């Protein structure tokens, strides 16, 4: 008798709760080597969704964020994806690891095909293997970060103008993303500066190498004056550390050299030499944007920097799409997102309808010790070298999207 009463009460609660919320699943590493990136992104997601909820939510529904730890493993991600969908998530957010993104985009496509009416969207904020918006594109996947080729395009334009660069060493992680970086660098350098010699093309296992000094010794032996790398998280940190120990004197063109912990790892050695290409850094505007000020007020640890401006862009687009569609149904949201144009404090951005790639302004920046705002209390921050407008970042696509 008591059990039945309890069951009825629980059911009443469940039904009551189900009506008023939109569930988002955040799937990223929350433990293990890449946890610092995943946990930081989680804070951003919570921050932006709380802001949306404070404004009334999306079409009257409050957003609830369910977080799942995937340890950057595609197998683990598929397990938690199933769990997330079972718990009612309609949008899945992931970014760390293109290997994981490939698994999720395939799984989401299959799920949506087999379960019409229960579709799920995949918002990818950091997995930038170009294949995800080219040969592997699908209607349910939206990418909010410029892909490998788009960023390499920006870098190689800068390299083209610098006549002091003669020998380039490529070092990357041995998986789809790292290989894409190496391939893009080789291809674009050959087109734009055929006189540049690529003196090394290194692939090392992902998140496994503890001591990069052998690799640094190799870079030195090659005589390179510039290193191009897509390394992220611990791989970037440890490479910088080993380079600093050995007194490595090169230009660093990195995708994630400004990521958590990397700037303190390279320290003053990086001033004038460490470059990154990102959609934001905290000196890109003369004054700190309101979002960053509020973020830093809420999260006060030294390591808490507003690094993922693209998450701000992602939620701005989601909010606008929900308003335009008048509904939170994933199919309607997806249609509203396609082709959407929005203004941001850094310039206009657009979600391409043909391959679901976000076009946003990109900035090539260099590390400096004379900036207004620094990173992680290190006294060092980035200074913009060049801005690339959103529409100029677009590249041709091979995507042949099939729409429902």
């Amino acid at each position, binding site marked *: 008798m008591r059990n039945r009463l309890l069951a009825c009460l629980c059911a009443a609660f469940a039904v009551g709760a189900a009506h008023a919320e939109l569930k988002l699943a955040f799937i990223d590493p929350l*433990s293990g080597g890449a946890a610092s990136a995943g946990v930081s992104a989680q804070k951003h997601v919570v921050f932006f969704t709380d802001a949306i909820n404070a404004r009334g939510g999306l079409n009257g529904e409050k957003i609830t964020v369910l977080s799942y730890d995937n340890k950057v493993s595609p197998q683990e991600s598929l397990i938690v994806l199933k769990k997330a969908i079972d718990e009612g998530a309609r949008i899945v957010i992931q970014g760390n690891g293109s290997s994981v993104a490939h698994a999720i985009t395939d799984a989401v496509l299959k799920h949506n095909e087999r379960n019409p009416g229960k579709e799920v969207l995949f918002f990818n904020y950091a997995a930038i293997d170009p294949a995800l918006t080219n040969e592997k594109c699908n209607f349910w996947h939206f990418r909010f970060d410029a892909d490998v080729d788009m960023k390499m395009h920006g870098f190689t334009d800068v390299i083209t103008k610098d006549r002091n660069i003669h020998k380039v060493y490529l070092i990357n992680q041995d998986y789809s993303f790292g290989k894409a970086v190496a391939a893009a660098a080789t291809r674009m350098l050959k087109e734009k500066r055929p006189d540049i010699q690529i003196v090394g093309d290194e*692939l*090392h296992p992902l998140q496994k190498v503890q*001591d990069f000094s052998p690799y640094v*010794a190799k870079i*030195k032996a090659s005589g390179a004056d510039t290193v191009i790398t897509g390394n992220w998280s611990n791989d970037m940190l*440890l490479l910088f550390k080993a380079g600093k120990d050995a*007194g490595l004197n090169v230009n660093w063109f990195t995708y994630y050299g400004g990521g958590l912990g990397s700037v303190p790892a390279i320290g003053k050695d990086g001033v004038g030499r460490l470059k990154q290409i990102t959609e934001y850094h905290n000196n890109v505007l003369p004054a700190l944007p309101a979002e960053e000020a509020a973020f830093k007020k809420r999260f006060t640890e030294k390591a808490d920097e507003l690094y993922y401006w693209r998450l701000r862009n992602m939620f701005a687009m989601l909010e606008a799409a929900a308003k335009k569609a008048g509904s939170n149904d994933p199919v309607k949201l997806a249609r509203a997102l396609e082709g959407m144009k929005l203004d941001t404090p850094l310039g206009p951005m657009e979600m391409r309808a043909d391959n679901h790639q976000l076009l946003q302004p990109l900035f090539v920046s260099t590390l400096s010790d004379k900036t207004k705002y620094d990173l992680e209390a290190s006294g060092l921050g980035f200074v913009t070298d060049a801005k690339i407008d959103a529409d100029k970042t677009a590249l041709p696509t091979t995507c042949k999207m099939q729409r429902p």
Partner: protein
Amino acid sequence: MELVTFSLLNGAVYGLLLFMLSSGLTLIFSLMGVLNFAHASLFMLGAYFSWQLSRWVGFAPALVLAPLLCGLIGAAIERYGLRAVHARGHVAEILFTFGLSYVIAELVIMGWGRNPIENRVPAMIDFAAFHLFGTSYPFYKVLMTAISVGMFAFLYGAFKRTRLGLVIQAALTHPQMVGALGHDVPRLFVLVFAIGSALAGLAGVIGGFALLTEPNMAANLGPIVFVVVVVGGLGSIPGAFYASMLIGIVQTFAVALDYSMLDLLGAFGVTLTRADRLYEVAAIKIAQAAPIIPYVLLVVMLVVRPRGLLGTRDT
């Protein structure tokens, strides 16, 4: 030439770091038969303690205090934990230490957070020891070498030359007899576990700035340490030394080698193209595969010579 020199230096230093870690583990295993999965966790605690203590009392005292703390924790683990579990057999002991490693990792996260902490080389040892071929070699690596060699000398001397060492060696193979002769064998176990843990803690102090100090460091290094212990042979400190040096140097040199099976086949006039089924495997460069070489060595050793290089009994 520079590449060879630096590879040798780096490989030797890495090998010595592995030895610092695995010497304690070999010691504990050879005496007590306990495969201590929490050993790498004590290494991690050593790194965190040294960072925390350095902030309170400076680096030099921390260098002494952190290993002492780890030794005390090790003694407590043995006295209050392992002793109770010992009666239930080896599997229970392994499960206990395995669970302990998880608990320690979570405690570290609770205490210091998930992100790597800025365990920078303390100012008093942060300078270049020497310059070779235009590359600087940091002093802390020299210190690491000195401490590691010192550890080896201490262990070897203590076990072969002192009376206590003699008793411990006897307890290795004949614990009941040693007990019958009036020595307090359980107390011996506590002592050995404490020494092993203190060695791990000391390795952690130095390893903390050579590598990243983060809650994951135990999980990253744990497997390699087992490889060293198995390849070197269970129960042999010199074996652990040779195995660590072998793995350290081979892995470091392997990174410098950009040759793959394709090149080898090419030397015999056989060319493979992308269409051939074995192309993907043959195209793997030795440099790409470098971090898995220790594990390949482990498998080969277990198949060919299960007692390891200098072991006293089979694995």
